């Protein structure tokens, strides 16, 4: 470089191609190096997170599912509680976009139903004569969007409101499975968040006290944590949720289940917080704060807490799937949420016995969504955990 600058004007030395490339790479590195030196911690974390492709994809998947949950009423083509005796166990009606080898406007086929004389069950075949055109923003049953605006525009459905298309089939009572799943997303995702929030409160408080105060208090809290961890959670959850009175309104049951799930789930959080507090108590910056006269409360909330918030977020993300699976299992057994609340566990109650699954295999589809949600949260948590320590 210096050699180049010392040359007379206009006389650029002809560098070999590979050397030029190397120089350019060096310059780029220098630029980003300077950026790294001045970037805030959150920015560093974002850069680290961006490198984790699976975590990014998972974030997108979860973002999409949360959108579905928020706009459930508009996305579900039908009311999830309306029963139809002429559509019991109706199979899925696939949507076609190719007709005679050419791309066409999406359409579905109608269903022809007959009643089997022997088993008295309704049998269905796709009716190739009856073509149902699909449409976006079609008119359907009226509902309140976000509980505020009265409307009857649904995101998609049969363009002729009189015809019905169940893309994922119907359940035992002829309710549209896809609409029910869309609504279940709302409950299942939110109960995971709510339960983790309660765990967070308990875990941070008790873990914080344990790590900051130490001594005898720490001893007692640690024994309690060990004790809770040693008890198998599902039987205990079952016992606790069996105690929820059957007469309670759905909303109370929802909160009671949330509480049951978080009562046993805060221990992991408490461990993380305690470990961090123990490690940090001896750090120089805490000592500096103390020497300059900060009160305990200021030290904890202003100095210590911010430095491990990212770790808390990461381990929170990793505990959400456990809560979601817990709710699903409890509701599946009939001890958790019950109709009219729709969650994935409630939906899976219909798939409880092998006979139902054999006659209507599509009833198992909700379980696949649960698997996707759990995997997405796990990858997201992994990515966040890596990002939480951007200096590592």
């Amino acid at each position, binding site marked *: 470089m210096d050699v180049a600058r010392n040359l007379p004007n206009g006389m650029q030395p002809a560098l070999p191609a590979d050397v030029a490339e190397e120089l350019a790479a060096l310059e780029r590195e220098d630029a980003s190096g300077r950026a790294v030196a001045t970037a805030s911690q959150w920015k560093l974390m974002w850069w680290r997170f961006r490198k984790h492709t699976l975590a990014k994809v998972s974030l997108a998947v979860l973002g999409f599912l949360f959108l579905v949950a928020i706009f459930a009423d508009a996305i579900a083509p039908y009311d999830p509680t309306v029963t139809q005796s002429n559509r019991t166990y109706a199979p899925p009606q696939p949507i076609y976009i190719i007709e005679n080898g050419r791309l066409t406007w999406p359409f579905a086929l109608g269903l022809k139903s007959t009643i089997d004389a022997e088993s008295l069950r309704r049998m269905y075949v796709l009716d190739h004569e009856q073509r149902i055109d699909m449409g976006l923003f079609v008119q359907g049953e009226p509902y309140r969007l976000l509980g505020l605006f009265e409307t009857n525009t649904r995101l998609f459905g049969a363009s002729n409101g009189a015809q019905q298309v169940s893309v994922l089939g119907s359940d035992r009572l002829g309710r549209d499975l896809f609409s029910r799943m869309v609504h279940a997303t709302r409950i299942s995702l939110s109960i995971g968040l709510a339960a983790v929030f309660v765990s967070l409160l308990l875990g941070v408080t008790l873990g914080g006290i344990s790590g900051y105060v130490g001594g005898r208090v720490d001893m007692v809290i640690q024994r309690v944590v060990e004790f809770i961890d040693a*008890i198998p959670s599902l*039987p205990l959850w079952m016992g606790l949720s*069996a105690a929820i009175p059957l007469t309670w309104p759905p909303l109370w049951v929802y909160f009671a289940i949330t509480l049951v799930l978080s009562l046993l789930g805060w221990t992991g959080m408490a461990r993380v917080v305690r470990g961090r507090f123990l490690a940090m108590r001896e750090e120089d910056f805490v000592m500096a704060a103390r020497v300059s006269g900060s009160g305990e409360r200021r030290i904890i909330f202003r100095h210590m807490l911010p430095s491990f918030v990212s770790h808390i977020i990461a381990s929170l993300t990793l505990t959400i799937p456990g809560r979601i699976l817990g709710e699903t299992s409890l509701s599946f057994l009939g001890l958790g949420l019950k109709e009219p609340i729709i969650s994935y566990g409630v939906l899976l109650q219909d798939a409880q016995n092998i006979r139902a699954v054999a006659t209507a295999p599509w009833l198992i589809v909700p379980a696949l969504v649960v698997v996707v949600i759990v995997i997405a949260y796990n990858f997201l948590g992994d990515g966040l955990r890596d990002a939480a320590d951007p200096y590592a």
Partner: protein
Amino acid sequence: MTSYILRRLLYFIPTLLAISLVTFFIIQLPPGDFLTSFEARALASGDQADLERVEQLRERYGLDQPWYVQYWKWFTGILVGDFGYSFQWKQPVADLLGQRMLLTFLLALATTVFVWAVAIPMGIYAAMRKNTVGDYAVSFTGFIGLATPDFLLALVLMWVAFFYFDMSVGGLFSPEFEGAPWSMAKVWDLLGHLWIPVVVIGTNGTAGLIRILRANLLDELHKPYVETARAKGLTEWHLTAKHPVRVALNPFISGIGDTLPGLISGATITSIVLSLPTAGPLLLQSLLSQDMYLAGSYIFLLSILSVLGVLISDILLAWLDPRIRYQ
């Protein structure tokens, strides 16, 4: 070492008390109780014998007295092997539990063996072939295993067996062995049925342990002592199996304590779906019908089982790894 074990055993006593209190609290939670509705039915049908039994039971377990009296009667009963009375089955709980507890324990044991037999080789393989197709395949399978709820796996396996192999997979015995006394043929029949619940319950734990073992082994593989062993001319297999794997296995031992409660939770729901003659279905039934002594004793025994697991794993760990010191 001896004093450490003794101290741990002493510490077991308050744990036992705490577990009994928690379970008693749970069985007291539901409003109303089985006996009251039972009595109402007996009154309605005018069954004198039943009414008398209600009186007897009420007397024996102090059901009309404050909770601490009830708790004391229940707890002291357990110490001499009286777990209470199942109102629904009209049998002492201990009789009901005996056979089923044995099978539950057997299932947990078989699952632990399965988990280790699968997780250890797969974890080692994934670590030694890091970032190859094999590693990704193992990790991906592990993730799916972690994310799939036990009951879903049970349902899918049942469905596959039912549709493609035309066999029924519920239960632990074929119908002809259901009530038969124990014999070689019955044990053989049991083994034929046992593998499905073992795979279903074990998948979750396997996935977790593979991840842990892989991560630990990756930490160990590049340490200087491995290099030294290699320089001394040990074969690759020998040096891995002898040194880093042994260190990386530590969390397995301490993991028993964490794995066991998970296995028991999984076993509960799986045995309900597969209708196994173990803990799960009985627990669910008793909870739904408020048969409180049965439910309580079950939760109590399951908890004791896993606390014992933690105890054993702690002692094993102290014995295996001399670096761990307990003052």
